[in-house]
């Protein structure tokens, strides 16, 4: 029962704030960014923080989801069209994830990072040069179906499903890969298979985020989904703590607020982000939450519910 209230309450509260226009349309855009970034951050965290595979190509998966959803929506501007587009985009992103993951996940650390970066760049170049995507000019006038309900449904849903996953034996298998690949394989974990699973699930979620982005902000161009976007997500994950779901959520909110505040000073924002990365790595590499989860006694059950693989039942 407590769990149910914990999930429904935030939705209701914010919905009320929106309906009474306390959260006006300007703030609503920030809210959308927060939700989309939460989905991106927790899914990247699954790949990088929990499974230990450094991916710099998350934006590539997001762009696939965004463009597929947009193209389908432009053809079928209806609610079923939106949902179909969202699903199709995510599935395609996942397929690309498997395709890219299988050969490259054998690589270690820095090499994997650069390979995923390369993949993301290749996707961007392809999108910039296809006729159907309207090239560098981008797609506009995408039908907007995304409102607070959908944003909340997908972001809360993603968090829930991933937390469940990490609390399962499959999730623990992924975590063991991060801890020690060779040891994990020696106790029967098919390491490459689980790396690909984590990668694919992460890609799927990024695809969903992309579709939500497309149908909320109604305008897409390939430049939005470049290396800088992957860095954006990376900063959230690093700040929140690689290996902490609640950390990612917290950091997503924080950084969305900072971004909105610094909207008129894009260079300052990037300078701040870059300093954040450097300072965190040197002085507090575990980020805000390390690999722990929020578990205040107030939140009691919710806190325990969020913590994966720490010997808790």
């Amino acid at each position, binding site marked *: 029962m407590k769990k149910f209230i914990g999930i429904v309450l935030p939705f209701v509260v914010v919905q009320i704030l929106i309906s009474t226009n306390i959260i006006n349309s300007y703030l609503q855009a920030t809210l959308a960014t927060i939700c989309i970034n939460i989905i991106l951050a927790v899914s990247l965290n699954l790949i990088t923080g929990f499974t230990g595979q450094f991916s710099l190509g998350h934006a590539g998966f997001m762009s696939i989801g965004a463009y597929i959803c947009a193209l389908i929506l432009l053809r079928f501007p209806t609610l079923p069209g939106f949902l179909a587009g969202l699903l199709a985009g995510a599935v395609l992103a996942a397929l690309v994830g498997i395709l890219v993951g299988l050969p490259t996940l054998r690589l270690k650390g820095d090499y994997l990072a650069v390979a995923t970066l390369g993949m993301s760049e290749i996707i961007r170049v392809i999108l910039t040069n296809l006729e159907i995507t309207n090239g560098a000019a981008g797609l506009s006038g995408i039908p907007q179906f995304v409102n607070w309900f959908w944003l909340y449904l997908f972001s809360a849903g993603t968090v829930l*499903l991933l937390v*469940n*996953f990490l*609390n*399962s*034996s*499959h*999730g*623990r*298998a992924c*975590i*063991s890969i991060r*801890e*020690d690949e*060779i*040891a*994990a*394989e*020696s*106790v*029967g*974990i*098919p*390491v490459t298979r689980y790396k690909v*699973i984590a990668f694919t699930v992460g890609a799927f979620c990024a695809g969903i985020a992309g579709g939500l982005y497309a149908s909320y902000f109604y305008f897409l161009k390939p430049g939005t989904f470049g290396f800088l976007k992957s860095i954006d997500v990376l900063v959230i994950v690093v700040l929140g703590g690689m290996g902490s779901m609640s950390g990612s959520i917290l950091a997503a909110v924080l950084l969305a607020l900072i971004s909105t505040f610094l909207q008129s000073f894009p260079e300052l924002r990037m300078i701040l982000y870059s300093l954040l990365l450097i300072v965190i790595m040197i002085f507090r590499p575990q980020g805000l939450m390390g*690999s722990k989860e929020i578990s205040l006694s107030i939140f009691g059950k919710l806190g325990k519910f969020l913590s994966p*693989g*720490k*010997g808790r*039942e």
Partner: protein
Amino acid sequence: MALLYVKKLTKSFGGLMAVSNVSMKLEQGELIGLIGPNGAGKTTVFNLLAGVYAPDKGTITLTTAGREISLEGQKPYNICKAGVARTFQNIRLFRDLTVFDNVRIAMHQNVNYGLLSGFLHLPSYQREEKKLKEESLEFLRIMKLDDKKDELAKNLPYGEQRHLEIARALATKPALLLLDEPAAGMNPAETAALTELIQWIRKQFQLTILLIEHDMSLIMKICERIYVLDYGMLIANGTPDEIRSNPRVIKAYLGEEVHDA
């Protein structure tokens, strides 16, 4: 029927012949030692048996549950599934995870629910997780680690870390256990405890054990047979007494005999 048949195992790295034409036979239930000077290729043999490396030549055949399985060229996780478990020369625990989790993860291959159930926590998840938890706790109790179950692996004292690594290997329910220098870095008291542990787990779990060690007292005390490796080749094979007095073995460890002045 021999549990493990190793025939003419050969492996070279670049120009270096690490293991050359090594053949071994392990009968079910035996406790066999593998010794040799540093760099003789002992851990390489383990790595070949465990699938970390694929041999250049030779075969490895495991016979369990009435079936013969070829292990050479297989991936480590498949070899584990077939029934071979190992520990590492430099302990490789999941350091930031608890004792409980280290064991739970080792039991993953016996867990019976799919990814979907993992995401949605379906009834199969609830059922299997409960079973897993009970099995893991029971196992920890048997291995006398249950009071430490929520301790992070990296916080355990050295001797207990070794103990945990052995326990984790056993959690995969192997028929054959490969122990790589389990007594490394231990004082005599710890080594005595380890000796007892090895003999105890062998009986408790009906294991066949292949043991790499430098501690001769441990080897001589518990091994029924010993294989001796030098420069990647097998130079002797026999009971502890035979090995002790074998001139080739003495030469390999101590060099040529020094004539008294």
